[in-house]
């Protein structure tokens, strides 16, 4: 913090904020739906980011003189009077801190040491970055950049990011390249690998506890089953065996446009094999045992494909952005529990903005999304669906939840936008007065404080509601 104050006194300061009030007369927490799959608009909460850049040696154009600067970024998702955390600095984090230098040893190469990041851009309507690499890494990075070609290579340690409570060194390295062809086509490809080596004697290093059954683990019954099979022999429970762990992510990017009304299209793809978990603690009869579940979590993969196209229908009068995405998360170890690691989802969003004047705009947006669980029911379509968790019949010992494996969500949003800096769907700052409506097949598909139990002693009635409405007054700015 002292560093940040010191830097702020003389630094070039940039940042981002969004703050809003969304009175919700239907008992919600102010967000139209659960998450950004339905478009970021009205589905995100408050956020603030401040980045400081202190130039120590400035760039001298046309020379090979070294230059260097320092960046520090603090950010977090809370603002006073806007959410439950009240803008507390405890919810802010120093998310980036690094030193950059150029013209040292190699021309057109920027060296970076500290927190790293490599990205091909984001899906603006979703606020998602499918091709993010190295964001979990503290280390060193080199970026060769010319007008047409960019190559980035970085390496470091991702242990604190991947396993913050069970730190162990996770070596990681990434390479990414991007080529621009004649200003109208961009191609990018990259990948990142992780290796967590075996360390004898380190409880946070990867191990395998032999013989754990997946279902027993998720039910918390590994120890009780052992004792049942081996009465009085809990102390003989198998010891963990050291091993290695690895994971990786590959990304691709195609961008093109710059012809007439077609401003630009981006297509992002990523495929990741997630890093295995470390250990979980299970208790039996007052004894606690660490179960190493790496072998039960090492077949999780995530496929993501997303695209966004920006169109200028009538210059300075009417813009349109169309976006879509598809995601497929697989967990090869899990055949029984519905989770976010084992589902398919897709979504489409269209936003149109009409400029009544350079400053006053009309915004309309609509989205449609479907999420499908691979392992059975996970959504409650009705307020009494606790009784219908398994083929229409109650199953008190079941691992499913609700009465459907599919959630379909439609949202419509519209309102007035004031953009002091003029036209542009992504021009900020924006002051917005918006109304949003959602229909979901899931009952009460938004953050809320409803009592969901069907217990006869429930003092509050359960509610059946598939439509949700919010009015929003909000501001968003990059600065």
């Amino acid at each position: 913090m002292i560093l940040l104050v010191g830097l702020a006194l003389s630094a070039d300061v940039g940042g981002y904020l969004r703050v809003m009030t969304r009175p919700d007369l239907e008992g919600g927490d102010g967000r139209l739906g659960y998450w950004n799959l339905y478009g970021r608009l009205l589905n995100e909460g408050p956020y603030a980011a401040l980045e400081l850049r202190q130039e120590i040696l400035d760039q001298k154009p046309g020379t090979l003189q070294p230059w260097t600067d320092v960046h520090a970024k603090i950010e977090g998702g809370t603002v006073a009077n806007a959410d439950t955390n009240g803008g507390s600095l405890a919810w802010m984090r120093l998310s980036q801190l690094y030193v950059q230098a150029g013209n040292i040893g190699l021309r057109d190469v920027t060296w970076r040491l500290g927190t790293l990041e490599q990205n091909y851009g984001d899906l603006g309507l979703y606020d998602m970055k499918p091709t993010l690499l190295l964001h979990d890494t503290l280390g060193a990075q080199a970026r060769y950049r010319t007008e047409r070609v960019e190559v980035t290579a970085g390496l470091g340690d991702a242990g604190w990011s991947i396993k913050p409570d069970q730190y162990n060194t996770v070596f990681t390295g990434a390479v990414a390249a991007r080529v621009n062809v004649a200003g109208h086509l961009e191609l990018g490809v990259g990948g990142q690998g992780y290796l967590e080596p075996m360390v004898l004697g380190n409880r946070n290093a990867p191990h395998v506890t032999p013989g754990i059954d997946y279902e027993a683990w998720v039910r918390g019954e590994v120890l009780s089953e052992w004792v049942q099979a081996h009465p009085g022999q809990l102390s003989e429970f198998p010891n963990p065996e050291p091993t290695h762990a690895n994971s990786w992510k590959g990304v691709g990017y195609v961008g093109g446009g710059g012809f007439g009304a077609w401003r630009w299209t981006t297509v992002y793809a990523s495929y990741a094999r997630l890093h295995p978990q470390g250990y979980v603690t299970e208790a039996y009869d007052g004894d606690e045992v660490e179960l190493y579940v790496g072998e039960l979590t090492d077949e999780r993969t995530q496929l993501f494909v997303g695209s966004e196209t920006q169109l200028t229908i009538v210059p300075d009068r009417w813009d349109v952005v169309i976006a879509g995405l598809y995601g497929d998360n697989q967990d090869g170890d899990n055949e029984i529990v519905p989770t976010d690691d084992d589902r398919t989802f897709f979504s489409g969003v269209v936003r149109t903005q009409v400029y009544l004047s350079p400053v006053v705009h009309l915004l309309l947006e609509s989205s449609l999304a479907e999420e499908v669980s691979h392992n059975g029911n996970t959504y409650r379509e009705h307020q009494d669906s606790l009784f219908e968790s398994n083929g229409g019949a109650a199953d008190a010992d079941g691992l499913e939840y609700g009465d459907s494996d599919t959630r379909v969500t439609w949202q419509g949003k519209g309102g007035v936008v004031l953009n002091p800096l003029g036209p542009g769907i992504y021009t900020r700052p924006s002051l917005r007065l918006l109304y949003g409506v959602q229909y979901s097949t899931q009952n009460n598909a938004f953050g809320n404080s409803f009592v969901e139990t069907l217990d006869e002693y429930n003092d509050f009635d359960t509610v059946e509601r598939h439509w949700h409405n919010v009015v929003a007054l909000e501001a968003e700015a990059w600065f």
Partner: protein
Amino acid sequence: MVLIALSLACLKPAPPAQNGALRPLAVVNVLDAANDRAAVDTPDRFDAAVLGEVSRRALVPTLLQGPETLAPLTPNRETSQRLRALAPQMGTEGVLLVETRPVYYSELNGQYRWTVGVVVTLASGGQTASRAFDVPVFLRYHHEREEAAVDAASPVVARKVGEVLDTWLGGGG
């Protein structure tokens, strides 16, 4: 909601200060990239925004551009020396020199932030009025570079140019 928007859209900005008869003013817009020594032309939309501000004030702008104008400005980025270098091309009218220096900052929450350093200088009759400021701009795509950054800074720069002109005209310039 639509009625509110329409009524807001009908609000017109106040006209700027005028000062007497139409007068000529030479305008030179320069883009100084951080990785290239050569001074080059600014984008067309930037030029249009600056010229628009000049035209609104009973001034008749003449845009001086191209290698012939900018080549003498390349060897030195000091404003006073550039004004001296421009002197042979200028007539008796004043000159408005707008220098832009876009520098990449970082990727910030999904957009590419650039800082465009700007120096607006108006020289006329041996007097100069100058204003230096930075304009943060955010570009949506990675392939958008210096030209796009200067283009995005146009609304803010034009407004500041207007302020410099108003100060000059208000002082009897």
